[in-house]
């Protein structure tokens, strides 16, 4: 009896999270994206270990070979296996994607929350600064930042994060501004809760939806940005490689060795495809407005 009642109560009072999860599960494209992304990530993590080839193994006599049973994706001019190179490059690309998004989150979240919460002149000054950075062409910022910071992987995602936090700050600020005038925030203030605690306990949890969505959509944007940097020659330096580096090498030889472009580009585009669909699915799930 009690058990039954508890079950029915649970069915009535479903949390927003459960609701969102169900909507996400009903979204075919998001599911496809999720599975695809997990498969690609696992392949990148495990594939190179299982393969008999290593990415740095060169075989000059062998040269560039089209795809075969030995080398599924063919080899590059130095005789390196493209399959292994694509997977190890994926580790860097996906890793940079997550790390730089984390940097953007670390800077953008507190910045936007403070600007939105304190409003008034603080907000004007802080957001005018963001506006000014927005109007700087990003290639120039990134080129200058990479010369500052050097060209190691760690610093590349710092540079990308330093560009990507702007939008994050704007989104968090907008959400915070919408919440700060609500009665329960006033109630918290009257009760003597500190600003910091109001932000942490009452404001941020309520902006979580848009933050999660935007964070998911930032990861593919960052992976794309990293590949643009590789195009400029500022990306990951050899012997390491990323999808951007491989695509860039492949694009130069597309007339003679098309497989050098096609396979890395395929993995790259599929990953972006998957992440974007997950992000879209999350947006529809967390913000039911406009979905039906």
């Amino acid at each position, binding site marked *: 009896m009690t058990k039954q009642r508890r079950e029915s109560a649970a069915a009535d009072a479903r949390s927003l999270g459960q609701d969102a999860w169900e909507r996400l599960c009903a979204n075919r494209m998001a599911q496809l994206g999720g599975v695809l992304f997990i498969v690609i990530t696992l392949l990148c993590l495990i594939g190179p270990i299982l393969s008999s080839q290593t990415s740095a193994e060169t075989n000059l006599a062998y040269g560039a070979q089209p795809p075969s049973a030995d080398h599924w994706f063919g080899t590059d001019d130095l005789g390196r296996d493209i399959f292994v190179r694509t997977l190890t490059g994926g580790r860097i690309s996906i890793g940079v994607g997550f790390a730089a998004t984390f940097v953007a989150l670390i800077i953008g979240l507190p910045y936007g929350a403070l600007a939105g919460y304190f409003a008034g002149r603080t907000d004007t000054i802080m957001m005018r600064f963001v506006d000014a950075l927005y109007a700087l062409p990003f290639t120039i910022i990134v080129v200058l930042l990479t010369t500052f910071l050097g060209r190691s992987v760690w610093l590349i995602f710092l540079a990308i994060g330093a560009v990507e936090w702007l939008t994050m700050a704007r989104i968090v600020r907008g959400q915070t501004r919408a919440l700060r005038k609500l009665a329960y925030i006033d109630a918290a203030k009257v009760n003597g809760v500190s600003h910091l605690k109001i932000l942490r306990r009452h404001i941020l949890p309520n902006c979580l939806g848009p933050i999660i969505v935007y964070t998911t959509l930032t990861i593919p944007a960052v992976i794309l940005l990293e590949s643009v940097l590789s195009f400029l020659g500022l990306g990951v330096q050899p012997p390491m490689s990323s999808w951007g580096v491989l695509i860039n090498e492949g694009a130069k030889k*597309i007339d003679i060795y098309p497989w050098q472009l096609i396979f890395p580009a395929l993995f790259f585009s599929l990953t972006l495809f998957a992440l974007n669909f997950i992000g879209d699915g999350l947006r529809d799930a967390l913000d039911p407005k406009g979905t039906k």
Partner: protein
Amino acid sequence: MLTHIARRFLQAIPTLWLIATLTFLLLYLAPGGPFDEEKPVAPEIKEQIEAHYGLNLPLHQQYFRFMGNLLHGELGPSYKYAGWNVDEIIRQSFPVSLELGGFALLIALVIGIPIGVFAALRHGRLSESFLMSFAMIGICLPAFVLGPLLLLVFSSALSWFNPLGWSVASDRVLPALTLGLFYAAYIARLSRSGMLDVIQQDYIRTARAKGLTESRIVNIHALRTALYPVVAYLGPAIAGLISGSFVVETIFFIPGLGQFFVNSAFNRDYTLVMGTVLFYAVLILLFNLLVDLLQMWMNPRTRND
């Protein structure tokens, strides 16, 4: 309306000042200078060159000199392209980027809006998933993959177009497609969600109840509101499109402005960096203003802000 425009112009001044100052500091702090060559010249010569351009002065003097020149509307001579002034470089390469960006914008709008609107009207059906997957491919194929692929198919295999250059009219096609398809895909997504929002409004139901034809409902009643998000996106998008793309210009060997955004920073060509940054910033501010005005015209409710 006029006061609004005037206020926006006044607000642009501190923003531009901040941008110029940030750029100046970034350039000053970045290691290396415009006259660091791989084969170093004699230190005395380098000193003389730097003295000629005022680079040996202390920070604040350099800054005021720089800003003073800017206030007189002088962008100064390029440090790397000897004999060229920065405004001459911009004036010569901007028309190319403007033309390329204009075509790309046309492609983006002509492809993007119909796809998005059509997908929204087919919401929940297979054709919607198909169209939006197609749009997603456009977003996930970066220019440096799309460009070489287009070249491979239409230039190497079919030889319909020249692989590079900017001399005959048909040279515009592949670069404009490479540049425009990403924007087309993005606009398709924006117009789809805009249309989805509008189509469930009460006034659309009223229009249906009045017995209007579906095409009249979509074209006259829904489209204007549905395109707000697209119009808002057009400000930064147009500024980005017409200021040139380094990637597209490199792939197709086009003498546009985009290459200078990257090369000037690599070369530490201080005046050229400052010139391109400010030019881009002015474009952004200008198109954001135009878009705001367009939105006010489209939606009277935003006029009181």
